[in-house]
């Protein structure tokens, strides 16, 4: 069940909210835990077992690690068991088939070269459990903090369960570290003003997802329907921008909805995006994009590897590790790894010299981000290497030495006519301006009516697209 669905808004959440607030304060964590399990099981009853096991095992191991003194063998032993379990599950369900596929390819190649009959390993065919990338990172942060004696193990298994699977951030983050949640899990304040604020935040997130991301997505979809071979260069660029806006407003909207829902339940969930497209360098971009993931990699990978404190060579190695893993985290496919490594190269370059240029001339930095980030998103979007190359020859027609390809050269004019207004909205909402205005006129009646309009317009689009996919993707 996604937040931007009628089912969630008008069935699950309304019912949940009533039960949650009728229940006495001390029972609310139990209500939230039960609600979250129902939310999870709604779409994926089988993998519910996996998340419950994770809670149970990490709860026990947390105590086992904490019981032993730092640097003792048992301390380390239980820590390694926990890590093996958590990341082992992630590997099994998310990466095993990718790994086996590549191994088979390698064996095949070796077999051909050295003339033996290669053993072909069978793929597991497992589907990806919902939210596993997110909850694995959350529980790993909990265990690592206990291992480092930064965090005491949580005594209430219920509270740990709520931390790991509370539905506002279960499926798509933000990734919250346990120390940020511990206090709120024990005691949180409820206020009508916060509730109201959370509701507004949710509506803004909903609008971002339904009215911006879903609309601009149609352009990207149209390009795929046409086929990359036959689009004009301007349309290829529009497509790259459209996909960039789509992925931003989709994810940003989802994070906002999570923050809003959290607020309505009395939680403070950290922000995940801070106008990434106004960044002036790639490093800056990653401090603004999916902030909680970046922070996780910084705190649990980069800094433990000594970050940039041990000379240039080690810094480069550490950056490589972080960006390789960041790429891999986004998906089990080579294009994601390449995508991550592109950031490794760019950020390394910025660390050593490019960064100074952009700090001096921010205008250059903006230009660089505006044109470069959409290109990285194309690498992210197109999982098939062959198609990816074709798309790049459309973006840069000189690459294949000919201008052949586009049959209908005015295709981009049609796209501008159709998507111009959505593009403009996307550009405006990528800047801090709307949020500034919102903060200033938050309680103005006009703002309230605008939000009301956003909500019902979103519902309108959800209604007409849920019953009839044709109206959304008309032929």
């Amino acid at each position: 069940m996604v937040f931007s669905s009628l089912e969630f808004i008008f069935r699950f959440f309304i019912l949940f909210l009533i039960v949650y607030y009728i229940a006495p304060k001390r029972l609310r964590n139990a209500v939230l835990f039960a609600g979250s399990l129902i939310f999870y099981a709604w779409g994926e009853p089988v993998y519910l077992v996996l998340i419950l096991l994770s809670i149970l095992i990490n709860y026990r191991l947390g105590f086992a690690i904490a019981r032993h003194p730092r640097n003792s063998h048992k301390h380390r032993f239980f820590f390694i068991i926990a890590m093996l379990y958590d990341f082992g599950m992630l590997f099994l369900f998310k990466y095993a088939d990718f790994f086996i596929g590549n191994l088979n390819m390698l064996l095949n190649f070796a077999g051909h070269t050295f003339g033996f009959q290669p053993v072909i390993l069978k793929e597991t065919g497992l589907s990806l459990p919902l939210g596993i990338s997110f909850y694995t990172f959350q529980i790993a942060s909990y265990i690592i903090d206990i291992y480092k004696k930064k965090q005491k193990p949580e005594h209430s298994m219920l509270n740990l369960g709520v931390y790991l699977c509370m539905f506002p951030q279960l499926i798509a983050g933000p990734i919250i570290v346990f120390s940020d949640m511990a206090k709120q899990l024990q005691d949180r304040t409820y206020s009508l003003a916060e509730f109201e604020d959370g509701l507004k935040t949710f509506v803004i997130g909903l609008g971002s997802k339904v009215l911006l991301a879903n609309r601009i997505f149609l352009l990207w979809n149209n390009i795929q329907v046409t086929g990359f071979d036959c689009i004009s260069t301007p349309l290829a660029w529009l497509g790259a921008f459209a996909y960039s806006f789509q992925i931003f407003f989709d994810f940003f909207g989802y994070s906002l909805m999570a923050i809003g829902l959290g607020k309505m339940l009395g939680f403070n969930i950290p922000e995940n995006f801070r106008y990434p497209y106004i960044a002036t360098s790639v490093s800056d971009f990653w401090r603004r994009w999916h902030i909680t993931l970046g922070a996780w990699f910084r705190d649990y990978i980069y800094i433990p590897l000594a970050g940039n404190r041990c000379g240039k060579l080690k810094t480069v190695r550490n950056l490589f590790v972080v960006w390789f893993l960041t790429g891999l985290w986004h998906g089990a496919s080579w294009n994601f790894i390449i995508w991550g490594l592109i950031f490794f190269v760019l950020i390394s370059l910025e660390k050593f010299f490019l960064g100074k240029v952009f700090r001096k001339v921010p205008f250059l930095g903006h230009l660089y981000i505006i044109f470069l980030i959409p290109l990285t998103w194309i690498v992210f979007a197109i999982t098939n290497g062959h198609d990816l190359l074709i798309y790049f020859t459309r973006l840069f027609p000189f690459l294949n030495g000919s201008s052949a390809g586009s049959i209908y050269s005015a295709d981009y004019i049609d796209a501008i006519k159709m998507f111009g207004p959505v593009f403009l909205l996307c550009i405006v909402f990528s800047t801090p301006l709307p949020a500034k205005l919102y903060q200033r006129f938050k309680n103005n009646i006009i703002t309230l009516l605008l939000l009301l309009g956003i909500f019902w317009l979103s519902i309108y689009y959800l209604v007409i697209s849920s019953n009839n996919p044709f109206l959304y993707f008309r032929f």
Partner: protein
Amino acid sequence: MKHIKKIPFFCLLLLSCIFFTLCGFIGKDNLYQSYIEDNDSKTTPLLAVVFEGIHDGIHPWDVFGNPSPHTGPDMQPSTQFPTEMLTPAVSDESAPDNPEINPDAATTPSVVPIATPTLPPAPTAIPLGPDGLPLVNYHTVDSSYFDDAVFIGDSRTRSLQLYSGLNNTTFLADTGLTIYTVLDKQMTASTGEKTTVRNYLTSHQFQKIYLMLGVNELGTGTTESFVASYSEVLQTIQELQPDALIYLQAILNISQSKHNEGTYINNDTIHERNELLKTLADNQHIYWLDANPAICDENGYLIETYTFDGVHLQAKYVPIWVTWLEEHAAPDPAIEVSPTPVISAETDV
């Protein structure tokens, strides 16, 4: 009261929820009945019907006014009449109890017999093909054949317009076009003119008319009601263009993966509709052209690599369709009964 002041937005939202739910509740037995029957009440709130209504031109306040839509301003069976509303009416047993929302329903069944007599029965002397229609000795022509042709259709015809490279011909193609909206929907002709098919065919004469519609209608009505509407449209087009050859194109099939999604967009329905649609052709004035063999595999699925969404040909495969059309030009009407060996559309590909 003090508390309410702290949560004005919540109150607004709640009130509007109640309002829309109330509208849905009041209209549930008349205005919105057809939607409610289609919706799953477990997952869809009652207020959803109000938005479905708005999409089809029914305003929420209509439920408070005159409950009889016959006199309501939005319920005239005009050409803009929402086609979706016909759906449940035609396919639904309870349609007679519900006359106010489907003014066309009563007349729909009688459309077929009205239209059929206009199609002259095929002379028995002409050999019939496997499709039951007279065999036609199709010619291969070059693209100048399309100089005096017009292509009418939905987004599939639109991809023909954009990616065929044919700029010597006329297209009246619009995304989302259906047999119910084809004549009177505002669209932009390939000439750049803003027009409707009816107006354009009134002011311009063509020698050949290529028609392909039907994918958008798959979730709407029954095969019979669809073909009945098609027959009416054909009749109108024939009246407007008495000299033109009409090429009635079969609905193109979809890919296996799209078919396997198990929605109402499936090849079984397409096949069923094509079979009945074919009966509107006589291969003398209205030719039946089924391009599916050219773009489908042996099981009748649109070839997977030709399409991204399972429905539309990708631009680079559109020329296959064009070539196929060029290979299927009807013989000149003057020498229409040809004694030469005949080739059927099916064996040709």
